[in-house]
């Protein structure tokens, strides 16, 4: 195993924007080793899906992670939810090590966290009634009967659905309504932290704003904390308070949304921002920063700064030294020698 140059990277100690730290992630790594026939007798380098990530999420904020496919953002979601075990590093929820929980503490953790996935077609069991789908997180906790039914009806109206929807099946709803059902399930057990994994990218354009507004309303009413994961920077910019930009399993920049937009420090963040097509034909000749090549294989990340082979301003040092994760100014972190 390649020794990480910077174990337990310095915590991005930001003055809490809304509250204390609810989720603390330190030096998180997840390496996937190939299994099965292909791996037999031949040791292949592991896929470094997440390779040393540290950040804090504060109570009541909406923290965004952006990155392109293969950047490792969804793996982080699964690790946070304890759907997979990290290779290295630590995730603390309310100061408790998530991956060391068991018994009642684990149960409490399951209740306190939930998730909304991208595609409501896949996240709603097609053969269950809405009542059972939405009620599942409570049913698992042993809630039954009228208490369960009442709570399900309550959250259905919270997300803007008719409580009668409980008796129907997912396929009877449109895409936007299905995503509302998924949100209802996420809040039914009164969680504190909800992971939103691409919550609107499978939806029609005209529905996106509805769901984003709903999520924001619920956050205010129920004092929720969100970890939003998305590839669409415009969505994350609108929805989130702070944004972390990921590239090839690592965070390259972390800043408050407005600041990241106005003053991105990392070349990759700059390119990502400029690559988003602006819905204004007058801006079509605006200079777009070129990004050549494609994201390298996470099984063999480049040495030094992972972005250097594609970086327009890379210098020799970038291919040798891994850049430090440093605080540019209060609350604005970046991993770049030249920023």
């Amino acid at each position, binding site marked *: 195993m390649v020794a990480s140059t910077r174990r337990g990277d310095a915590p991005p100690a930001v003055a809490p924007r809304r509250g204390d730290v609810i989720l603390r992630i330190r030096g998180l790594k997840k390496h996937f080793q190939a299994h099965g*026939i*292909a791996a*037999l007798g*031949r040791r292949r380098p592991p896929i470094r899906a997440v390779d040393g990530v540290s950040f804090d999420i504060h109570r009541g904020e909406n923290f965004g992670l952006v990155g392109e496919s293969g950047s490792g953002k969804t793996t982080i979601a699964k690790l946070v939810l304890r759907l997979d075990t990290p290779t290295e590093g630590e995730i603390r929820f309310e100061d408790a090590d998530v991956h060391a929980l068991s018994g009642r503490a684990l149960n409490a953790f399951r209740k306190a966290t939930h998730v909304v996935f991208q595609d409501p077609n896949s996240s709603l069991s097609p053969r269950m009634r809405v009542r059972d789908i939405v009620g599942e997180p409570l049913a698992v906790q042993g809630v039954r009967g009228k208490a369960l039914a009442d709570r399900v009806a309550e959250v259905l109206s919270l997300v803007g659905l008719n409580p009668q929807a409980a008796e129907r099946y997912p396929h009877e709803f449109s895409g936007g309504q299905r995503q509302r059902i998924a949100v209802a399930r996420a809040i039914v057990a009164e969680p504190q932290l909800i992971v939103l994994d691409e919550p609107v990218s499978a939806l029609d354009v005209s529905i996106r704003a509805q769901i984003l507004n709903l999520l924001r309303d619920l956050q205010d009413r129920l004092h929720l904390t969100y970890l939003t994961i998305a590839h669409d920077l415009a969505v994350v910019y609108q929805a989130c308070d702070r944004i972390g930009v990921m590239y090839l399993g690592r965070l390259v920049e972390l800043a408050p949304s407005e600041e990241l937009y106005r003053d991105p420090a990392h070349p990759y963040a700059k390119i990502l921002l400029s690559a988003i097509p602006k819905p204004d034909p007058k801006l079509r000749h605006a200079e777009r920063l070129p990004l050549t090549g494609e994201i390298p294989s996470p099984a063999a990340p480049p040495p030094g700064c992972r972005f250097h082979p594609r970086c327009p301003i890379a210098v020799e040092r970038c291919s040798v030294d891994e850049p430090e994760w440093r605080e540019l100014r209060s609350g604005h972190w970046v991993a770049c020698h030249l920023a």
Partner: protein
Amino acid sequence: MRRYLLLRLLQSLLTILLVVMVVFLIARIAGDPVTLLVTFDASQSDINRLKQELGLADPLPQQFVRFLTDAARGDFGISFRTNRPAMQEVLSRVPASAQLAGFALLISLAISIPLGVLAAVTRGSLVDVIARFFALVGQAAPNFWVGLMLIFLFSVRFGWFPTGGRGGLDHMFLPALTLGTSASASLTRLTRSAMLDVINSDFVTMARAKGLPRRTVIFKHALRNALIPVVTILGVRVGVLISGSVIVETIFAWPGVGRLIIQAINVSDFPVVQAAITLTATSIVLANFLTDIVYMFIDPRIRYVRS
């Protein structure tokens, strides 16, 4: 690619080993072979001595190892019926069986693939309906019945073909047709549905958008992909086909391994049964291995990803 092949070969060998073990165990369930070898008035000490001689007094694992090493040399013992080495008995029947099975396979491929393709391409047409009807009927009709009906019609009634025995092509036609029917039915069905899947895929639309003639789209783009699942099943079908030859050879008095197995079972000639079943099962495993190789040539994803 070579590693994949090697691995599949190892798997096949393991399967053959397991087959031999199963054959061995079944033979032991059958009871004590010694009782078949001695006369009714043999004394217990005679029996014990014979057991000792044959190694039947040894513990089972030891017996199995011996059985295995003998089997590896092709030695399955002496046929009770003919007193010739059991393997020799079986081998003398192999050409007849191979001829029949090969011809049946040929017939079923010649029917099923063109029919399946045609049915898919003309979906909803009369040809399609006929193909689907054939697939349904062919899968539901038992071999032995089809065989007997063919004999009844074409041999007894019309006298066009001989009722049985081995000889020229005319002798082979009915049994091969019988044996090929169920295989061609299920292959037709599979080819049709695989073609339908592929025809609706994006890359076929792309091929058509390139302005390729229909023929090229169907045969070069669609069929090659549709053959992937067909070839996968082909390995299994070959097993079923060889297995089915037991019945067909019996009905048509075809002097092959299948008929030998039934004859040997009827007289409890276990060395021959063991030899024949081991040999047949081995050939089926090898046929599966061969289809894997064919598979690799059709599907580059196997060739590269696994290597």
